[in-house]
């Protein structure tokens, strides 16, 4: 099977350290994911799709920004695949492109309230913008 995304795929696997071949398709990552309902592509699909080189849909999906980095899929995966690391790698590949920031500074004031901790703000910038 021809894989037109071979370079990107190799890059993603290298930076994430994930080996998708270890996956046994049990779906426990997606079973445990707290953000599942807000995701168009779910953790097990990230593993599958990166393995098969079908990466563009992931790059363009808002699913990237719904991962909570709660690491539940990392800890509960019986095969040690660690899907969240792959989500993170794809997310970086998306936002590192020029002008591809998901969050712009101008958007922020509307999101704030009096109590919101700094932590949320810096985390969001880490996750949504380069």
């Amino acid at each position: 099977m021809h894989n037109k995304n071979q370079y990107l795929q190799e890059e993603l696997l290298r930076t994430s350290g994930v080996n998708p071949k270890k996956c046994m398709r049990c779906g426990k990552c997606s079973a445990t994911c707290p953000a599942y309902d807000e995701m168009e592509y779910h953790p097990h699909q990230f593993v599958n799709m990166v393995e098969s080189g079908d990466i563009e849909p992931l790059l363009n999906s808002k699913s990237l920004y719904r991962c909570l980095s709660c690491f539940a899929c990392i800890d509960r995966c019986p095969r040690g695949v660690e899907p969240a690391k792959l989500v993170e790698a794809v997310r970086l590949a998306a936002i590192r492109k020029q002008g591809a920031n998901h969050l712009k500074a101008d958007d922020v004031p509307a999101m704030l309230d009096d109590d919101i901790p700094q932590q949320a703000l810096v985390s969001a910038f880490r996750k949504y913008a380069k």
Partner: protein
Amino acid sequence: MQRIGVFVCWCGSNIAGTVDVQAVSDALKNEPGVVFSTNYQYMCSQAGQNMIKDAVAEHKLTGIVVCSCSPRMHEATFRKTAAAAGINPYMVEIANIREQCSWVHKDMVTGTEKAIILGKAAVAKVNLNTPLTPGESPVTKRALVIGGGIAGIQTALDIADAGFPVDIVEKKPTIGGKMAQLDKTFPTLDCAACILTPKMVDVAQNDKIRIFSYSEVTDVKGFVGNFDVTIKKHARYVKEDICTGCGACTEKCPMKKVPNEFNLGMDNRSAIYIPFAQAVPKVATIDPNYCNMLKNGKCGVCSKVCAAGAIDYKQQDEFIEEKYGAIVVATGFNPISMDKFDEFAYNQSKDVITSLEFERLTNAAGPTAGKLLRPSDLKHPHTIVFVQCVGSRCDACAEKGKEYCSKICCMYTAKHAMLTRDKYPDTDVYVFYIDVRTPGKNFDEFYRRAVEEYGVHYIKGMVGKVTPEGDKLKVQASDLLANKQLHIDADLVVLAAAIEPDKSARPLATMLTASMDTNDFFTEAHPKLRPVESPTAGVFLSGACQGPKDIPETVSQAGAAASKVIGLLAKDKLTGNPCVASSNELMCNGCSTCERVCPYGAITYENKEFRMPDRTTAIRRIAVVNPAVCQGCGCCTVACPSGAMDLRGFANSQIIAEVDAICK
């Protein structure tokens, strides 16, 4: 000096086509020790063999070199010929000039050249050969079976059937094992107790079988045919031969709050107890951790109500020493602990149970008398979620669970789901699976019936989290085929926990010097061709101690192990392989290196008196190889730092002579 005869075989044209056999026999004639050399069309034929016999007589040969096909082919033939001619069969060496010469080389010159060199190497070796006689050792005609589950029971029955006495050692107060705890058995759904308990009775009534229950093996010495075993019989504080098993004591015992291990702690028993109604031996046992009399001397009710006078608070552990010719390991399995998998809330809710607990919940003799009631509030569950592969098929770096497939879970889960739907059609049953593995006779048909006839919901996916809230268990799971996350409010969650070898297996393996894999399953002598034998001679494997197995497989392995034991015990004497290691006691410095590399535990140490040059005596520690146990790999010979250890038939001097002959 040897008197060696060389016999070069043509093998029709197989050898003679590429090797000038005449040149070979002529060249070898001049080798040291060779007094006769010839060639013939078919050395292995009757005429060829007679030629060898005649030559032995005529030339007073002491050694024979046959240049022919592979020794794997005809070494045995020519050894027999030698024996018939009156010389020691181990004075024969084969030069492989067919498979490793004429068949792989195309031209006559190189083929002949190489055949001569191979012949010279064989001659050089025979020059150093010594006559070898295989050792013999007697066989104790009694077998020991460790573990009294279905594996041990079947093995013991089969051995006893052949007329040999057998002892079963079981660490629990009764035999029966895991199978006694099961309700129904797949795929036929016959009741486990109905098919197991008659076998237990057979064991009890068989005069060839002795049962040591509440006992364990504490020491094993010796070797195949001659094991010396120490069995520790724990004090049960009841005289086994007097107790009638009437059960009066268990009724009257005031201490009734002891978690009942037979029902996996889901109900209580008394401090003096009989594990279950059909226990064998059916005698009471006092649990010293809970008995008030044993703990602080206050009570004594059981001794008062016992009409037979069987209670003995002063009973001590007893050690029994017995000799055995063969040992069968049948230590079985246990479900793994669910502590590391608390995303399924096993430690948080009584209504999250393992499959073995489910067996007890549906068993007529179980804590709920066979009614399917959930443990927390004894209500009938209407939605049940089964989770497969809990702790099985985990990656090693996931740091929890087992790497292997536990093999039995798919089928027992299908059984549980089917039985639930059969008895309680108003119950919704979900089974979350990764794969459904049903390789067995009538297995897949059984699973399909669960789905098609009984309407069990099989969902491809896994449960990620179970959250007990109120009287519900909120199950969050994935349905991979629908690409959905499911949220199910369940009343009962059943976990198909992985199975692991019993914890007693590893110390036992050390005692037996039997090898184990990284999962603590016993390894077989050969994974395909010797599946019921341990690499350690005289030790055999039966049941799940060797790997996950269901009942039919266990029973067939138990029978196979028994037949191997019978084959061993039927012999009066064991003949060993004479090509074994031996230590030169004058060179040995007792360092223990060889002992550590020996995979068979064949090497022991003894202190021996030596006469010193000044007429004093000194005691030195030296290695002694047991030729009945040694398999002749030669590992120790290389490990030995002082060069004391050597291998008969493949001695250092012989191999070096071969090297020299080849490199000359």
